[in-house]
């Protein structure tokens, strides 16, 4: 027989399979009319074989795949004797034990029972306690839809077991499919599940592992809840914590709520989430959280009705093409659209507080739906979606370091605040000058010192100051008047502070405060002295003292002047700086918001200071990885500014640039790119192409492109930025920074030779110009180390990274992204050397530092956690690795969407682990 082209066969076969069996003949008639009749015959033959072939391969596949340990355990122990029971076969395995079908040897109970036996190698004190806790917990429960506890004991070997009623039936999903239940019947059945779960919740028990294989329907159609292996008594005290954590590691990720994956506290809403997943699966045949390929990331799963509708469109696919576990095909999307969509999605909300608070409320809504009453879930949906917007995405760490340049060059957090501090300083200086006519010359001299302008003349200024300081001690005139001395010392101390001569500054400021009656005095001069001293302590890193002093200044000023007074605000902002430096970012945010609020009230929405405040708050949110919120604020600030200034005003450009950075971090590449291109265009027009601001925007465009793996275009833009930056006057930091980033791009692009050449020449020049321990030099070196690793040269990578780590920690601090990157490179090296314990320690450290500094769900923290998971794999701790990968996946999916490469990376690792387990 002459066989037709397989390609043509494939195409026609697929098309035919999409049609209903009775339509296939006519389809073949028309499709094959021009072809050889042999083609048509072969097609018909293959179509006829399709179902049997699918069945054959399905069987073969499961034969190949399904060799599981379960079979081995039961094969190893056929008909074991356990207490008065004899096992018949193994029927399941939970996290801690094997479940057997068993019967009583003595025949006193003629029903078959389910016997759960603790795994031999899981017989650790902790798991044993957990196992017994389950038994205890079951003993206290009595509900028709919960499998009853019948007996319990210990085997001859000492392994504990317990005996439950045996449920001969099917998982709820299979049951519904097999019996082709209609929507209403499914919902009625599901209400029985909810009834059982509500009973648990009323008894302060959270099941935590609800999934179809734990929800059986027996032959009489009765729902039975099984497996309380990781259930938790809400009333449990902290003593239970260790055990609980073990439990969390054992849950099933597909049905686990985000907070469970993240290891956060579990409530009844956690079970509501799992119930939501089960309901979703019952209605659609698949679990949520697997968006269709090609759709954009969503904050909530696809509506169940959309899935049914899409499926209906491609009707009559071959049974094998249906997703496994598919529902009865009788479910019409119209029945599900509306209420049931809303109910499902409300149960599935990522934040526990916006779900149904307990199973009971979920059940009530389903009841209402069945009775045709309006459901409660509906109301809040719109508001929810809007409110949700701000919290959606964030981004991986590679971008962060590249983009930070933008932020510092835009507006520093403290820009608005600095102005105030300077004003206050000038005020104080004026006051001193007024009050102290004798020291006119000195005051004038000192107040003329603007640290920014004093560069290069520092020695002279310092000399004058030193002379002035010397005079105070000798001047009888001053010594007799403490107020005068205090004012002079305050002025001198502040100036020393501004010049960075902290030791000298401290002497004068402490004395000034002392002369004013100590830091606890309440008059305005005393407060001014205290505030300056607080500022100095901040710079000295003595955060506790700084905080104590500034907090008191704030309290007193608020009492006396009111909270809206500029001096109160100034104190508040100084306090914010201390808290920020001490890593207490949450409190800073509260203060930023307060400042913004006051300015809005006093100055109006669109006052330049208010806009600066908005930007300041946004920058601090950005730095903490809360890109969505930052973007919203940047957008607001930009909108207000554009009412007053043109789009090409430098401040507007900077805001646009910041906004583009936020979009980039959120993975909204298209918006980031078009905005950045606008900025470049305007900036080139207003400032010129050869301007640092323009070059910076071009650099950032390069970053945006590189993040999308559009390397050729990224290279072009970075080269353009480099060309401009090379010609600019100054220390050429930007020039080297761009070159270093371009080397990163070549590295990630796989152009190792180019990357190497660029790293080496840049590193050499950075070392010459800024020294070996300059932060940017270190960053380049760190990038080179990662390249060495990828080139397979572990030894060189290690030698380099070991040199970098300490100095980098010194100049950047333990929580800085640059340092964390280097830590992770070292962790990867250790992993490549199979020194998994070391890799694990390093990555754990990185996770801890990133979580401390940036929050546990910051992209960088997630990247570190993924590295930790890989180290755990090396340690053969697949379960722990799986749970960690699940957490990272959940985190990234939430922040970046499901299609983002970082999310895919985590999902792949998770998938590999799932299947390896």
């Amino acid at each position, binding site marked *: 027989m002459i066989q037709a082209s397989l390609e043509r066969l494939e195409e026609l076969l697929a098309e035919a399979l999409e049609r209903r069996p009775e339509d296939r003949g006519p389809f073949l008639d028309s499709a094959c009319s021009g072809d050889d009749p042999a083609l048509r015959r072969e097609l018909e033959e*293959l179509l006829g074989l399709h179902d049997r072939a699918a069945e054959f391969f399905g069987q*073969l596949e499961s034969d190949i795949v399904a060799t599981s340990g379960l079979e081995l355990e039961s094969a190893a122990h056929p008909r074991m004797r356990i207490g008065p029971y004899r096992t018949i076969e193994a029927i399941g395995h939970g996290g801690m034990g094997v479940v057997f079908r068993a019967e009583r040897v003595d025949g006193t109970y003629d029903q078959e029972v389910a016997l759960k036996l603790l795994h031999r190698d899981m017989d650790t004190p902790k798991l044993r306690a957990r196992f017994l806790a389950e038994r205890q917990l079951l003993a206290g429960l009595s509900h028709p839809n919960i499998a009853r506890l019948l007996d319990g004991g210990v085997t001859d070997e000492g392994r504990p077991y317990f005996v439950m009623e045996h449920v001969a039936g099917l998982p709820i999903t299979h049951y519904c499919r097999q019996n082709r239940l209609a929507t209403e019947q499914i919902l009625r059945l599901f209400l029985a599940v909810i009834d059982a779960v509500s009973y648990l919740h009323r008894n302060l028990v959270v099941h935590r592992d609800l999934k179809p294989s734990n929800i059986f329907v027996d032959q009489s159609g009765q729902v039975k809840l099984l497996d309380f292996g990781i259930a938790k008594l809400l009333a449990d005290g902290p003593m239970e914590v260790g055990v609980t954590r073990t439990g969390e590691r054992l849950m099933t990720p597909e049905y686990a709520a985000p907070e469970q994956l993240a290891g956060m506290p579990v409530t009844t809403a956690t079970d509501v989430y799992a119930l939501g997943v089960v309901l979703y699966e019952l209605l659609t045949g698949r679990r949520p959280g697997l968006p269709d390929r090609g759709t954009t990331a969503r904050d909530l799963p696809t509506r169940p009705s959309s899935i049914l509708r899409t499926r209906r469109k491609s009707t009559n696919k071959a049974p094998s093409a249906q997703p496994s576990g598919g529902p009865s095909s009788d479910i019409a999307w119209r029945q599900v659209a509306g209420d049931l969509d809303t109910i499902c999605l409300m149960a599935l909300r990522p934040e526990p507080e916006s779900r149904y608070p307990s199973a009971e409320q979920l059940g009530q809504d389903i009841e209402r739906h069945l009775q045709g009453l309006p459901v409660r879930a509906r109301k809040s949906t719109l508001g929810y979606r809007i409110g949700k917007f701000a919290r959606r995405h964030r981004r991986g760490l590679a971008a962060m370091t590249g983009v930070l340049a933008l932020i510092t060059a835009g507006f520093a957090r403290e820009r608005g605040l600095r102005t105030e501090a300077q004003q206050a300083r000038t005020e104080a200086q004026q006051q001193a000058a007024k009050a102290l006519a004798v020291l006119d010359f000195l005051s004038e001299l000192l107040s003329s010192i603007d640290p920014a302008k004093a560069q290069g003349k520092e020695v002279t200024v310092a000399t004058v100051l030193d002379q002035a300081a010397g005079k105070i001690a000798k001047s009888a005139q001053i010594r007799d008047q403490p107020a005068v001395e205090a004012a002079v010392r305050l002025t001198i101390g502040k100036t020393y502070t501004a010049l960075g001569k902290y030791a000298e500054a401290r002497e004068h400021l402490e004395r000034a405060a002392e002369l004013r009656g100590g830091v606890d005095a309440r008059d305005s001069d005393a407060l001014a002295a205290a505030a300056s001293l607080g500022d100095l302590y901040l710079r000295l890193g003595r955060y506790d003292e700084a905080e104590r002093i500034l907090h008191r200044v704030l309290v007193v000023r608020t009492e006396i002047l009111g909270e809206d007074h500029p001096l109160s605000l100034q104190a508040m902002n100084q306090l914010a700086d201390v808290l920020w430096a001490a890593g207490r970012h949450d409190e800073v945010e509260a203060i930023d918001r307060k400042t913004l609020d006051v300015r809005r009230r006093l100055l109006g929405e669109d006052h330049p200071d208010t806009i600066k405040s908005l930007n300041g708050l946004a920058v601090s949110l950005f730095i903490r990885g809360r890109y969505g919120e930052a973007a919203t604020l940047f957008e607001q600030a930009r909108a207000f500014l554009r009412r007053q200034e043109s789009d090409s005003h430098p401040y507007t450009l900077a805001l646009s640039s910041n906004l583009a950075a936020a979009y980039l971090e959120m993975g909204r590449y298209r918006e980031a790119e078009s905005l950045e291109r606008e900025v470049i265009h305007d900036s080139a027009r207003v400032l010129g192409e050869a301007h640092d601001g323009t070059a910076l925007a071009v650099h950032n465009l390069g970053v945006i492109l590189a993040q999308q793996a559009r390397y050729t275009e990224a290279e072009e833009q970075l080269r353009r930025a480099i060309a401009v930056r090379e010609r600019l006057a100054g220390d050429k930091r930007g020039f080297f920074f761009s070159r270093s980033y371009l080397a990163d791009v070549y590295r990630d692009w796989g152009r190792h030779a180019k990357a190497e050449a660029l790293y080496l020449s840049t590193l050499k020049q950075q070392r010459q110009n800024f020294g070996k321990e300059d932060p940017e030099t270190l960053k380049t070196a760190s990038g080179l180390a990662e390249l060495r690793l990828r080139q397979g040269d572990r030894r060189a990578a290690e030698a380099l990274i070991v040199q970098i780590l300490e100095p980098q920690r010194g100049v950047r601090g333990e929580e800085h992204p640059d340092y964390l990157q280097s830590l992770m490179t070292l962790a990867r090296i250790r992993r490549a050397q199979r020194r998994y314990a070391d890799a694990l320690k390093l990555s754990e450290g990185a996770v801890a530092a990133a979580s401390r500094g940036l929050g546990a769900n910051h992209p960088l923290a997630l990247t570190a956690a993924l590295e930790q998971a890989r180290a755990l794999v090396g340690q053969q701790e697949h379960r722990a690795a799986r749970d960690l990968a699940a957490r990272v996946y959940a985190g990234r999916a939430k922040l970046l969407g499901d299609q983002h490469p970082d999310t895919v990376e985590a999902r792949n690792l998770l998938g590999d682990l799932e*299947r390896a387990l």
Partner: protein
Amino acid sequence: MDDVGEITRLLARLDEERGAGESAALKQLMPLVYGELKKLARANRHRWSGQPAPGTTSLVHEAYLKLAGQAGAGIVNRSRFFCVASKAMRSILIDNARWQRRQKRGGGSTPLELKESMSVSAQRPEELLALDEALDRLDQREPRLARIVECRCFGGLNVDETAEVLAVSPATVKRGWSLARAWLYRELQAAQP
């Protein structure tokens, strides 16, 4: 250099070379991956005591994890590896089926160490061997379809994973899989006595 290192190196070479260099690298790679999978399966068998032992799917994934773990993140070409591993798994299972057949006929040399954890159920060696031959014929006519079968059937990859490995859309995989199944099934029917 150890096997894992060598596998990593060869996989990298696959990415860079085309044509003769590529197939030379593949030729060297196959026995190494084969050996690595067998080693893992053996280790799993000995490690087994209450934990589920893995089937072929998880072996492939576990082998990948091990490889990636030692090579550093993102350095091993995942798709390439899965493709090669699916092939290797095919030959492991086929070798094993041959051994089973010899056992059945009363002949046979030393048993392969993998039989407990990796054999397809004992009554099917004939079927599997016939499938292998049919798959060779399919490979000659349309290698693309043979790759899909290897991934789905022997590598234990699902549709999405197969799509990723072969760099095509899941829809393409589904279509190819439908045809390949029917086609192979027909061949098997024809081969039956």
